[in-house]
């Protein structure tokens, strides 16, 4: 293709085409070393021994085999009750979060309450609430108010109230000013201003967010039962402990179907809310 002499000449004329400069090579080596180091540390901490891995894989194979065919084993009523509980938790958890988040969102919006320290403090509170996973809230609430769906509802509502309040506050900060000025010009007080000037503008956005959270909470609520906070998760964890894999598979399928149905319904509602 190319003789040696010409190759050498081209290499001499365009050295960087054939080899990186020392500085580039150094940077690249450093980047790979950092990445490799973290990865090696990670693998060292998480990887099981080879024997444990093979044994686990074999066990996993058996489990999947035992799952077929999925069966409810005569516990369909109990499972459906758990599923109902899951949906109830998702519904009420989202509802409570939304109810609390509306006033919090108004207070946290810069254009509603132009008090910097208050605004800053509220925003940090929202961040704190949503920084903690609902499962952590669940174990705390189970300890505080006892086992059952009530703890689950609270566990969903608390972090969501933080996230929704933040989203609501952002939506309120992005509204059109002229409509609010119109209401003010008509002599409205602060509360009336919020109700008639701001709320109509942000309500569709808020509703859409709330519906989206309902979808995601249906997924979350299906596992809170693992720590005793109600719903289908408790039965799932029990079946796994009892080695009842056909029923485990059945419950997983139930969860999948429920989540798909809720996604579909909520997606349909969200499109309607945004369209109107």
């Amino acid at each position, binding site marked *: 293709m190319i003789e040696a002499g010409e190759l050498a000449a081209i290499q001499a004329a365009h050295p960087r085409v054939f080899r990186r400069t020392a500085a580039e090579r150094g940077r690249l080596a450093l980047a790979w070393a950092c990445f490799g180091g973290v990865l090696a540390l990670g693998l060292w901490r998480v990887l099981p021994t080879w024997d444990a891995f093979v044994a686990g894989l074999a066990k996993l194979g058996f489990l999947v085999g035992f799952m077929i065919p999925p069966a409810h084993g005569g516990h369909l009523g109990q499972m459906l009750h758990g599923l109902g509980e899951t949906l109830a938790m998702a519904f009420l958890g989202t509802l409570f979060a939304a109810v609390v988040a509306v006033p919090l969102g108004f207070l946290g919006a810069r254009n509603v309450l132009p008090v910097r320290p208050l605004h800053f403090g509220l925003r940090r509170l929202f961040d704190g609430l949503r920084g903690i996973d609902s499962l952590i809230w669940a174990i705390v609430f189970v*300890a505080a108010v006892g086992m059952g*769906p009530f703890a689950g509802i609270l566990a969903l509502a608390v972090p969501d109230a933080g996230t929704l309040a933040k989203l609501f506050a952002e939506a309120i900060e992005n509204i059109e000013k002229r409509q609010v000025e119109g209401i003010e010009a008509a002599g409205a007080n602060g509360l009336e201003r919020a109700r008639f000037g701001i709320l109509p503008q942000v309500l569709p956005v808020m509703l859409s967010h709330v519906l989206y959270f309902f979808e995601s909470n249906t997924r979350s609520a299906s596992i809170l039962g693992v720590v005793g906070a109600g719903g289908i998760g408790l039965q799932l964890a029990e079946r796994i402990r009892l080695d009842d894999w056909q029923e485990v598979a059945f419950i997983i399928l139930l969860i999948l179907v429920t989540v798909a149905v809720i996604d579909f319904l909520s997606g349909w509602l969200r499109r309607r809310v945004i369209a109107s």
Partner: protein
Amino acid sequence: MVAAGGSDAFALFEARYRQLQREKALTTGCGVVLFAVAFVASAVVGEVDPARLMTGVPSILDYAYRTLPEISARQPLADIAEWFWGIDIWLMLMLDSVLIGFVGTLAGAGAAVALCFHASANLTPNRLSFWLARRGFEFARTVPELVFALIFVFAFGPGPFAGVLAIAIHSAGALGKLFAEVNENVDPRPIEALAAAGAGWSETMRFAVLPQVLPNFLSYSLLRFEINVRAASVLGIVGAGGIGEELYLVVRRFLYSDISAIVLLILITVSLIDIVCERLRHGLIEAGPARATR
């Protein structure tokens, strides 16, 4: 004549208007009734009643109060040290959680990259692999991580490996869907050029598609890493390694000040990782990878 026509038109308008109002009222009414039914049903099934709320709220406040550490003005540092008495163990466990998130994200992203080209309608080599990849991603992201974790803990025994697997599978599903969406918006012209030059399918993906989508892939993976560190810090609750196990333990033993210390540690770690990842993501979006071949 004109007057009669006018009143006819007016009557017609009135009738239409009233019908529309009726329809609207009907929809609203149905909505309200449905909502009320759902609310009552949920309250019954969810065992929520005003009495429960009344007793619940004080007990929560009491619980929250108990978790507050005792920090005196006289020797605040010593008190904080006392509050975080287990910091060396907890930091190690927190590091484990972060590493579980890291390895899990990496493995999940790798699987997602490998399969996402099959799951894109514009790139897939055949309908069967498209269908399989799509359904696989859907399954992997719809089953909650914790369910995977429960099963893997049962199979592989307690420990971080189960957590890594659970996070990897769930991430592969979530990222795979996003990656496929990114793929479906690529510029088709380089793909055509490479196909016209006789390049094979994998080479076309590597050189015509990957350079276009890589910044987005990295950005989504970083976002996923943030989410996964949160997830990894709770997976320990079912025995899948990391700080979650310790947290569950201290909650069940009512070691109140330990609860607040560990929760605070998780909060700080998660926030730090969020901040670092956000920086990286902004850098990615601005620069994009300009890799030379050498």
